[in-house]
């Protein structure tokens, strides 16, 4: 047993004053209660708005989520007592709000094209996600063990990323080939690859950071790395471009590449990497944007989101076509206005296209308005910042890199999805972490939070290095 574990165990049983002050488990429980209660109220609200009655499933759902949250809390209390107290409540709240919205969209019934009840599945997936969270919290004794799997991770990530390209595309995939269909069951390997790649990058960079940082020559005021050190970034850049071309998945390419550049920058503390990375990204995106029709269409839709309506004759009512999606989302946002239509009182099905995945943000914007959407973004912002704070506090380079990677991956994903749906940047097609319907996404993001939680636990744990722990 390590010294840190011993002291923590002593801390809980004997209870020195400072140890209790840093664990903040009580705060976590309070916030968690709020994070469970708020979606319950939202659930009741949707029921009252649509059926003028409380949803029949309310008591069971209340018991279920409360039990899940409590189990999670007790597990954290037992296995990660010094973990950041905000991570679990934030994930619980986002997941809960997502569930309510998926249920609400279920209730749109036949008005939502191709609608099929999904809230039940999403609930099962969320429970599985929390299960994986618990497993990671219990089984991952020390996050540094992940370092052992650096190259295994690389291989696994490559397999996961490449796999969809070997599966036939389906019409229901809306253009991007990012799904694995196994029987009646489909997973989106990119969501898991995100975490596994962060593990690989952290392990790789921890080893190579000195070589990357120091062995360089100066060109035009920038410290450029040596060619052989430049290799990995070029390989990852090439891979992300390949993903983009073969799976037409701009979002994942952007995410993986951004993730790598950020981690490289943090590992080497060299700004030149950012410059090189940006140049490569812009260059690659320009080439692909010009050559790949699927990507070009999305850029056109971004530049003029309402063009699709002008093209369609106003006198022929018909189902919206795919390219109207951003315009429809903007209509939803516009109709939502500042305070929103109210939960259950919007007409989210008009977004039509994949209303339960990327565009679930449109439903939030319509029913909760600017106020609700800003609150959502701030919740994500808070989650990301708690992750980065964990990175700052972590005592080992691997932990720092991994936490930075995971937190910035979350930030990039939120930005890419929300930016796409609100028309800030071209639409790329990823899922909104925790909110959107989709098993892979929910499960993977719960695992992500679990790893962050474990790193924060070890970072905040009062240990033999008291000076490093100050300020956490």
């Amino acid at each position: 047993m390590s010294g840190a574990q011993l002291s923590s165990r002593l801390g809980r049983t004997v209870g020195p004053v400072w140890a209790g002050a840093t664990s903040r488990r009580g705060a976590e429980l309070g916030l968690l209660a709020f994070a469970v209660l708020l979606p319950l109220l939202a659930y009741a609200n949707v029921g009252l708005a649509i059926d003028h009655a409380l949803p029949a499933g309310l008591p069971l759902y209340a018991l279920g989520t409360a039990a899940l949250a409590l189990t999670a809390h007790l597990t954290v209390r037992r296995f990660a007592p010094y973990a950041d107290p905000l991570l679990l409540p934030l994930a619980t709240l986002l997941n809960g709000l997502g569930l309510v919205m998926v249920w609400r969209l279920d209730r749109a019934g036949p008005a939502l094209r191709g609608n099929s009840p999904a809230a039940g599945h999403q609930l099962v997936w969320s429970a599985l996600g929390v299960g994986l969270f618990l497993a990671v919290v219990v089984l991952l004794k020390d996050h540094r063990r992940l370092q052992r799997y650096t190259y295994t991770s690389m291989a696994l990530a490559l397999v996961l990323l490449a796999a969809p390209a070997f599966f036939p595309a389906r019409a229901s995939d809306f253009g991007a080939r990012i799904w694995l269909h196994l029987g009646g069951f489909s997973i989106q390997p990119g969501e898991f690859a995100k975490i596994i790649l962060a593990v690989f990058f952290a392990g790789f960079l921890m080893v190579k950071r000195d070589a990357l940082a120091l062995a360089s020559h100066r060109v035009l005021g920038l410290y450029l790395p040596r060619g052989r050190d430049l290799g990995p970034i070029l390989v990852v850049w090439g891979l992300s471009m390949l993903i983009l071309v073969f799976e037409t998945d701009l979002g994942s390419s952007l995410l993986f590449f951004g993730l790598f550049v950020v981690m490289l920058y943090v590992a080497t503390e060299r700004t030149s990497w950012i410059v090189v990375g940006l140049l490569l990204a812009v260059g690659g995106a320009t080439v692909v944007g010009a050559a790949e029709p699927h990507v070009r269409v999305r850029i056109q839709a971004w530049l003029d989101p309402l063009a699709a309506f002008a093209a369609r004759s106003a006198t022929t009512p018909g189902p919206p076509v795919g390219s109207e999606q951003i315009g429809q989302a903007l209509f939803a946002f516009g109709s939502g206005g500042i305070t929103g239509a109210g939960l259950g009182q919007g007409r989210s099905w008009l977004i039509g296209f994949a209303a339960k995945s990327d565009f679930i943000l449109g439903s939030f914007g319509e029913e909760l308005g600017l106020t609700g959407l800003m609150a959502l973004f701030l919740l994500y912002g808070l989650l990301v910042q708690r992750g980065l704070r964990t990175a700052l506090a972590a005592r080992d380079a691997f932990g720092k890199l991994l936490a930075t990677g995971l937190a910035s991956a979350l930030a990039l994903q939120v930005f890419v999805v929300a930016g796409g749906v609100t028309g800030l940047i071209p639409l790329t097609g990823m899922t909104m972490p925790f909110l959107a319907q989709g098993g892979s996404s929910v499960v993977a993001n719960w695992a992500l939070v679990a790893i962050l939680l474990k790193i924060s636990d070890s970072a905040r744990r009062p240990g033999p290095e008291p000076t490093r722990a100050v300020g956490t």
Partner: protein
Amino acid sequence: MNKPIRRVSVFCMVLIFALLLRTNWVQGVVADSYAENPNNRRTVYDQYSYPRGNIIAGGQPITRSDFTNGYLYKYKRGYTDGAMYAPVTGFTSQSAFGSNGLENLENGVLAGTDDRLFFRNSLDALTGKQRKGGDVVTTINPKVQKAAFDALSGKKGAAVALDPRTGAILALVSTPSYDPNTIAGTSGADGDAWKALNADQNQPMLDRALRQTYPPGSTFKLVTAATAFETGKYQNPDDQTDTPDQYILPGTSTQLHNDSDDEDCGQATLKHALTISCNTVYGKLGADLGKEKLQAQAEKFGFNSTVDIPIRSAKSVYPTDSTPDGTAMDAIGQHNTAATPLQMAMVAAAIADNGKLMQPYLVDEERSAGGTTLSKHAEKQLGQAVSPATAQKLQQMMVDVVQNGTGRNARIDGVEVGGKTGTAQHGTDNKGLPFAWFVSYAKVGADTPVAVAVVVEDGSAQRGEISGGGLAAPVAKLIMQAAIGR
């Protein structure tokens, strides 16, 4: 590594901040332009998510808002006697067919989105009261409307009845009509009905009373006679005119004929010429008066301008560029003269009310859902079309038309009725079946409660059977009887 992590953290905050700015822009600054975009179906669904206000005639609503509990549309518009009231109500469609008539023009009040309802709507939103649109009270008298619609049914035509004293429109009928109920919804049947209505050669959706102009034919002789008195060319209805038995149009060798050549039109008096509707007398009178004077008088009656009742009428035309022979034809309502039934009703109403031309109006009052008056029509005089003396002379002549002339079919026992028939030629070389016109008023004691214009298109397959007195006068008689209760 902490320095770059801090920078990454700032970068992540910038990303989130960019999203916050973007949502503020989309949902705060430009939200309305997206919310009100015509392609945003929410605007249509919103309109039918609470009861729409009603259009009211004679104290009774002629529209409904039926609760259908449809998923997209909670309420559906319904019309009572839809075909009869179609020119008044117009239609509003949940499909993408749009709306017209009062449904369109009064949409703000009916849908409850009018700014004047903002306070009440806000109050209702706070108190949780269900939102409801306001009502529009029309001037239509259901009895008169029904009489006109029944009398015209089976014919193609239009009728307008006005209260000459106020300008209130008592009846507004156009046939063949359509039932707005058939195109109010979203079903396939609604789409089929819409296509059928648009493809129908009889143009059932055309509001002939307001939006269609016809050559007014002999009914325009009233305007020519008015010009004769107003310009001082003649003083009395019994003044003899200087008309040859055979009138050759000025500058041409074309002879202008009367309905039959044995009519005693030569040197006829103004009154007699109107009574038997002499083309030669009024054609020559028009040519003698000249186009400027005729135009000035026609415009005093409302020609060459549109009227908003608030539904906008088509512009009735008195041409400004005719040669003298054309002016002779214009003066008897042929050639390029064209008038809506509303315009001819205004001519009859002005004459009946001693020359005063009142602004015709269809909407008497706008009300909030709670019954508060939002606006009430204030009677407005458009002008003095002719002097009272001239008006009385014209009345004498019109009474003679009904008593002894071509308008006998409009006689009502015990009531003073004045009228003028018209049988308007049209089409290339006048080959089309003529339009039968009748304009009239009825006087009860010293009061004139109603003036009417009726036009019947293609009333009979036999050209010879078509005449204003034969086809249109009986319709006008029924309308006037309904209005005065005889």
